[in-house]
């Protein structure tokens, strides 16, 4: 009984927090526009007239993309800086989203992405078994 009451109270709190969160979602405009998210959700069979839920999905996606991008950014920064030929050029290198960083970041999410660096005539062209195997 007690446990039930407590859980009931907790549930109420959780519900309140949830509603509060959903209300706060309306203030925050996700980067991905609502129309786009709604389109893709409709494509997959998700049906809901509530805008807050669509914003929730948009925010979740934004979080996902941001996580992946930040991981890739860390990989990019962790790479040693290129050799400075010009004395004016400082250590701040251009932060470019490259396929290498992305593939490394996505590895942790269980996605195997490999971008072919060149188009080869045969599968074994340019294959260096020691370095290319990752």
């Amino acid at each position: 009984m007690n446990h039930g009451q407590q859980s009931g109270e907790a549930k109420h709190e959780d519900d309140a927090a949830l509603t509060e969160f959903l209300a706060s979602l309306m203030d925050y405009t996700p980067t991905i526009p609502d129309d786009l998210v709604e389109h893709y959700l409709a494509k997959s069979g998700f049906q809901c007239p509530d805008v807050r839920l669509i914003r929730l999905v948009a925010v979740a996606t934004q979080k996902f993309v941001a996580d992946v991008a930040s991981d890739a950014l860390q990989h990019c920064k962790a790479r040693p800086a290129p050799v400075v030929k010009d004395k004016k050029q400082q250590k701040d290198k251009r932060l470019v989203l490259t396929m290498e960083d992305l593939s490394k970041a996505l590895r942790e999410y269980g996605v195997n992405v490999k971008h072919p660096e060149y188009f080869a005539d045969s599968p074994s062209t340019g294959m260096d078994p020691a370095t290319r195997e990752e």
Partner: protein
Amino acid sequence: MSLERRTHDGERKDPSSSSSSSYEFTHAAAKAAVAQICESVGYNHFKDPPLESLTGFAIQYILQLGKSAASFANLNGRSQCNVFDIVLALEDLSSGEEEERVSLESCSALRSVKLREVIDFVKISDGEEESPFLQTLPRFPVSYDERRKRMMMVPSFVEVGETPPGKHIPLWLPAFPDPHTYKETPMWIERGLDPRGDKIEQARQRRKAERALLSLQRKLVCRISSGGGGDRVWGDMDGGTVKEEIREEAESEEEKVDGVSVVEAFAPALEAARDEDQMAWKQQKKKKKPVGLSKLRGEKKFLGEPLDLTLQMKGEDRPLSLREEDRDDKRRRAEFILRQCMENPADLNQL
């Protein structure tokens, strides 16, 4: 934000998409949104292939979320999803470790780790400057859907107000197209009797023209027969004014029969005096020649001549001397003819 594009062959086309145009548009919009997110993370340059890949992943993420949420809702016997479905879908997609799984004791959604992460993310992002989608997207699902909807959403029977043919067709179904769209329906023939009426009208107008011509000729003849101001009569025979005068006179002297016979008598005289310019006009007059009169008069073509005479007597084409000679000649001839006509009163009664 600058996009460094490597050379690659065109855009990837999703073969499973229903319409490539919508796919391209949404893909481009998603790409812009993802690039914006990356920019907020810290990137300021992108290569195109990783950006494309990341966009594809984001789209797949949304699709998977929607799919899982929909299936969770269906499992619970609902067609519309709610927040718990989304939370469950979030949990489903994440590859969380065992300890972080949602506790089964309370079914509150906030127990979900993923949701908490999302909440934290929102709080953090709210703290930073909000970066909404920079470009204003048109209501694209509405526009192309609306076009399709407009094409496909025929108003139902209820909306149109028709009763469906057959009891087996419910009222909420789209209405049938109008019969004129698929079969040839008879067109209304509005002018059924008009050809006949037109002919009657035409004959009436012709008769009117005949009468007018006749009266004009009578006037002319009267003028000639009056004789006194011969020169003046001839000289004044202008096209318009003379006709009007003569019409007025002829109306009062309609009974004067002499004029008509004179007209007839004038035929040979006027034929001789015909000019080239009057040929065309004469032919025009001949066309208007009333049928009845020609029948009455037989072979003699006299209709156009007195009018030709008026034109002639304008004096535009001939020198003065010639004109005077002609006038004298004609006057003599006219008098002679008049005398002749006086002797034949029979013909006059026919008109």
